[in-house]
């Protein structure tokens, strides 16, 4: 028994089966990420003033990853075009480039960006103690400017054992730059270029702290959404890389039997890859820029 239209298009629909399948699958994926993005909107709109952080992510690295993903979307189209022209060696080259870009994206994301977050510390100050830390927070200045208040002090935690040991009564934090000169109007809005923590150490008493964590999903709904969405997106990138790797190593057999079949498979995988790219095009501004 043969299923018709696996490689050639059905005349009246103009489509072969897998193309219908992948578009339907992508429609469902839109709804999946749509659910997560609507959660982002819901939680962000619900957040108390000052409780939706800005400028905590590394924008240049994010931009680099954006460029990498867009580049890989180009190379996968070139790989497909090479197959359509029946130039197998060139297909292998472009496919290798696509796989490389996919892996590079994951390495940057999981090997650099995420760990940089786990290593960062933030302490939400109790409302009653905000006054005490005014020299770091600069809320009078922000109020005058009509900007939302700062309620958290972030930086590099010097005494990490303080998180676990109840006997230690304060956190020693090497401050992020914004808290060293909070009234500087240049610091009113987050910076695009990454600024490392300064050497200036602030001591924050635990009794003044409402909640203190590293930048983990538990830190805030912001980081919860960030890690969930980028994690799920990362899984999609990984899935794409696995499929491309399979097509790279085992595509030869299909190609010899029917080159059009391999071209179709690359097209379908490529459509998925473009979708993964598109999701990132939403993730990047929502978390890094806005």
């Amino acid at each position: 028994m043969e299923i018709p239209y696996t490689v050639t298009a059905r005349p009246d629909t103009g489509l072969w089966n897998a193309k219908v399948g992948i578009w339907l699958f992508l429609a469902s994926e839109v709804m999946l990420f749509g659910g997560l993005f609507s959660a982002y909107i819901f939680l962000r709109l619900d957040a108390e003033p000052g409780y939706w952080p800005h400028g905590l992510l590394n924008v240049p690295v994010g931009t680099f990853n954006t460029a990498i993903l867009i580049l890989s979307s180009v190379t996968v189209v070139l790989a497909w075009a090479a197959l359509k022209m029946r130039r197998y060696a060139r297909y292998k080259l472009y496919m290798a480039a696509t796989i490389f870009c996919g892996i590079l994206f994951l390495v940057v994301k999981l090997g650099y960006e995420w760990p940089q977050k786990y290593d960062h510390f933030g302490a939400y100050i109790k409302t009653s103690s905000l006054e005490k830390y005014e020299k770091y927070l600069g809320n009078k200045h922000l109020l005058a400017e009509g900007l939302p208040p700062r309620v958290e002090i972030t930086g590099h935690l010097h005494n990490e054992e303080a998180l676990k040991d109840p006997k230690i009564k304060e956190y020693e934090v090497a401050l992020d730059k914004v808290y060293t000169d909070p009234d500087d109007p240049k610091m009113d809005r987050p910076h695009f270029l990454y600024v490392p923590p300064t050497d200036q150490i602030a001591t924050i008493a635990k009794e003044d702290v409402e909640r203190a964590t590293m930048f983990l999903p538990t830190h805030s709904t912001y980081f919860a959404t960030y890690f969930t969405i980028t994690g799920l997106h990362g899984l999609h990138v990984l899935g794409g890389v696995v499929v491309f790797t399979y097509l790279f190593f085992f595509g030869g057999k299909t190609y010899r039997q029917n080159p059009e079949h391999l071209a179709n498979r690359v097209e379908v995988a490529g459509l998925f890859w473009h979708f993964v790219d598109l999701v990132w095009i939403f993730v990047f501004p929502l978390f890094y820029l806005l």
Partner: protein
Amino acid sequence: MDASSSISAHAAHDPHTHADHDHHELGWWRRYIFSTDHKVIGLQYLLTGLCFLFFGFCLMMVMRWQLAFPGKPLPFLGNLIQNVLGPGAMNNGVMTPEFYNSLGAMHGTIMIFLGIVPIAFAAFGNFVVPLQIGAPDMTFPKVNMASYWAFFVGGTIMLVSFFVPGGAAKGGWTSYTPLSDIADKGPTYDIIFNGQTLWLIAFICLITSSLLGAVNFIATIIQLRAKGMTWMRLPFFVWAQFVTAFLLLLAFPPLESAIVMQLMDRIAGTSFFLPSGLVVNGAAVSISGGGSPLLWQHLFWFLGHPEVYVLILPGMGIVAEILANNTRKPLWGYKSLVLAALVLGFLSFIVWAHHMWLTGMGTVVSAFFQTTTMIISIPSVIILSAFFISLWGGSIRFTVPMLFATAFLPMFGIGGLTGIPLAFNSADLYLHDTYYVIAHFHYIVAPGTIFAVFAGIYYWFPKATGRKMNDFWGKVHFWPSLICMNAIFLPMFLQGMLGMHRRWYDGGQGWTLSSEKVWGLSGFHWNTPISIAAWVMGLAQIPFIINFFWSMRYGEKVDDNPWQATTLEWTAPSPPPHGNFLATPVVYRGPYEYSLPGRAKDYTMQIEPVQPNERSMPEPTMSLGH
């Protein structure tokens, strides 16, 4: 020679020779367990689904004891359950409140996601749709197999969750947050192997299964229709499955995202659904807060409402086929039915918040969803009216499938009409979460969809096995089931209107509301006849179970088209071989050409070419003036 006689000539061949010819290289495991054949997968779904359906029903029969006789030891089963699940479930044979909650949550979950959807959508869709459109199989047979096994794994995890410490999920089938976020958590619970987390993990499997199935169904209907099978020649059942597949495809993923978030809340300590300042057992919880419990409800009901139509549309499709076949006349208003199904599918995505009137969303939001909910009743009424009018003037054959299909109509009607008060914001404030709601949606799903499912089983059984199910025992199954269904759910409307809450562990014994008398019994005492009816209905399923298995081997042997039907599945041998049709079918006419004027027989199959002098089929109309 006319086409149907050539079919019966084919049927004279032994079907096994074709079957053996096509998959002689496959071993037993690949043929019956890890099969990629849509018919085998359909039957796998059917059998697994029926087991879950019965199991889910058993959970309810156990619950009904506690509701009718609160605090009394459960006879026979009480000690058994206590021995298996421990004193956390049964204390000296008396059901604990925690176990009662587990039963309620799992009854809902199992009936909907492991019973009805797998049977009505996956089983019938898999078995019937490719046959009805003249396809050799599904477009993606391996994906189809993966879909079944993802469902199987999900179902297994759901069952396993009964046996983990603390028992199965207790948060209701809706798993409302923040309750379900903090349930089954703490030092005595495993972080993964606890009821609620396993519920979430099982759901990820089930959603994967439904995604794979939905993609497959839609692609099959778009791509694999036989030559001449244009869109408006599709049987209504195929249209119903087509719309259902779109609902599953697009409505389930938002719930999946919500489930991922709830898993993160439970495992990674996030606060997606946990508000700031949450206090549990008198102590503030150490969470970041800032989450929104309402977010869960929105995402859940974004699936939850289309899911209602996932439950009912395949049932309507089955009923349509059986009505046309047994009234021996075309389905009335085929085009309106198709359009109504499409509109129903679309509108079902914008009514979800009518489940949330009590959350205080605000009057503007409520007014919007109240309006869309009113509008969605229009296509439902069109469908039901078209079915009723189809009966008009027909010479009806009351076969067993037809009995169930006919019963579907008023039962679904009651379910639908009693939903209208719930659609109104102000009326729902009173009726919300009472037994009225239970009665309303059970009328749609139990004597509605489940009757349609039974109708479908009796109807297509000869196609799957080559034998008919026994008529007499079919009727013994039907009449008590019909009576008991009404005896169970009709009094619940009364209980609900008294204000009895649907989640009371004691059946309302300790509440003043339920001491008021209605129709001679107090609200609480109505529980007893309802429970007895439920148990009798359990007994009434025994003839079906025996009939089902007995008929597989000993049922009356029938030819390929025992019901004299018109659609393509009846041109294939019974049971159809791998690849389905002996010759690739070509379609020449619409799906319901019964009683075509000037013909010797009262049905004309879709594969019969149009005769040069044939009068075209008139658009069916209803004449009231004779």
